[in-house]
């Protein structure tokens, strides 16, 4: 009962925060910067409100549960879009690093996809709920791996991203890693973990919403890369040296004349 009440409060506050993020988007006109992310928030807001209305009208958890998994998969797919968009935007100015992430991401996807197909081929006795739950676990694992790949590349190449993108990655990362861990624990511990799972899952999403609200409160575009590398920049150095040599030549020339 206590768990249910806390879960319900998190649900209400979560809806409120989603509405705040969407309202701020209209105010800051940030939609053009992060369209996929705001589409994700809008979808989650609509689905979450719809599920709440369904729960409130029927008061039946079975009906709610019937709709929960399909809608969860839908938001998960849009969540993929958010992660891909994050990778694309944070590496837009770095074609080398971007190419690296794309290659790693494609390998991860192919690897996990082959594993799932093989698994499906061998075990053909999945119930619908088990199918959704296992599918979510696999898809969360791919999301986590892709985020790990992108963040590792950002860290390795020392790439700086703006406050908003950092916030999007932090929120998404916390939610994805919590979901992945909790799904694995649910499978391992069994039904007695369900109440704690619901609460922790909602809690991690609530934490993500708080981070997103803070990070996207004001407009903040990704910083431009530090001094671009390559011969162009070396030319600057050469130009400055040439100017210094010219002033030296002038100095010595005037000295010789006087």
């Amino acid at each position, binding site marked *: 009962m206590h768990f249910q009440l806390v879960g319900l409060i998190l649900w209400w506050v979560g809806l409120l925060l989603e509405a705040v993020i969407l309202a701020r988007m209209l105010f800051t006109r940030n939609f053009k910067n992060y369209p996929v992310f705001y589409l994700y928030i809008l979808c989650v807001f609509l689905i979450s409100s719809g599920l709440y209305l369904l729960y409130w009208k029927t008061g039946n958890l079975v009906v709610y549960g019937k709709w929960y998994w399909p809608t969860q998969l839908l938001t998960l797919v849009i969540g993929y879009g958010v992660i891909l968009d994050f990778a694309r935007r944070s590496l837009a100015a770095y074609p080398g690093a971007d190419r690296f992430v794309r290659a790693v991401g494609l390998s991860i996807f192919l690897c996990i996809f082959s594993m799932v197909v093989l698994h499906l081929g061998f075990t053909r006795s999945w119930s619908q709920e088990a199918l959704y739950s296992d599918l979510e676990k696999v898809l969360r694992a791919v999301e986590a791996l892709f985020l790990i790949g992108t963040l590792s590349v*950002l860290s390795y190449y020392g790439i700086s991203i703006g406050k908003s993108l950092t916030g999007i990655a932090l929120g998404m990362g916390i939610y994805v890693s919590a979901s992945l861990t909790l799904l694995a624990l649910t499978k391992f511990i069994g039904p007695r973990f369900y109440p704690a799972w619901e609460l922790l899952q909602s809690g991690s999403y609530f934490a993500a919403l708080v981070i997103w609200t803070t990070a996207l409160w004001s407009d903040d575009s990704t910083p431009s890369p530090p001094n671009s590398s390559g011969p162009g920049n070396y030319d600057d150095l050469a130009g400055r040296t040439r100017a210094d040599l010219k002033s030296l030549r002038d100095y010595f020339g005037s000295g010789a004349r006087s």
Partner: protein
Amino acid sequence: MIPLLLSLALGLALFFLLYRLARRSRVPAEGSAYQFVEARGSLHALQRELLPRDFIDRLFDRRDLEFVSAQAPADVRQLFLTERKRISILWVQRVRSEILKLMQFHRGHSRFHSKISVLTEIRLAADFAALLIICRMLEAIFYFRGPYAAPHLVDSAAATAARLCTVSEKSLAFLNAPALRAVAGESPRGSATI
């Protein structure tokens, strides 16, 4: 149990990277002209001063110790060993520091290149990481067991460092432009053409 452990490992790895992302302060400007010049200096130091085969052979040649042991009393031998240990530690610290500069240059440089080979990048990252670990290990070995304790590891460090120098040399090749040599050639011995 294994899927649970894998999921936990993934979750923890992601948390760790997010923590690093959140804690990261301002990234220093990379890929600047100053970095090119600094990397060129590191490459020069490694190739000409720290990694030449005869220098490494000289520094870690046991025959020096045998000679001192045969010709001088025990306290001179001890003094020789202390000095050689100090030089070995300085050598490995210097190699590590120059390699770090090269690595920083490489990372700042290659992230802009759209035609990088992913496999080469992974191999280079592994080489840099392995070399930095080997250098730390050598430092500890020299400190605790003396300069002659790990000759194979010294060879391995020198070989990896030389390989990384070759790769970096290609990236810095444009600094050896023929025009620069032509300018140098105009200067008579003992004076400079301005």
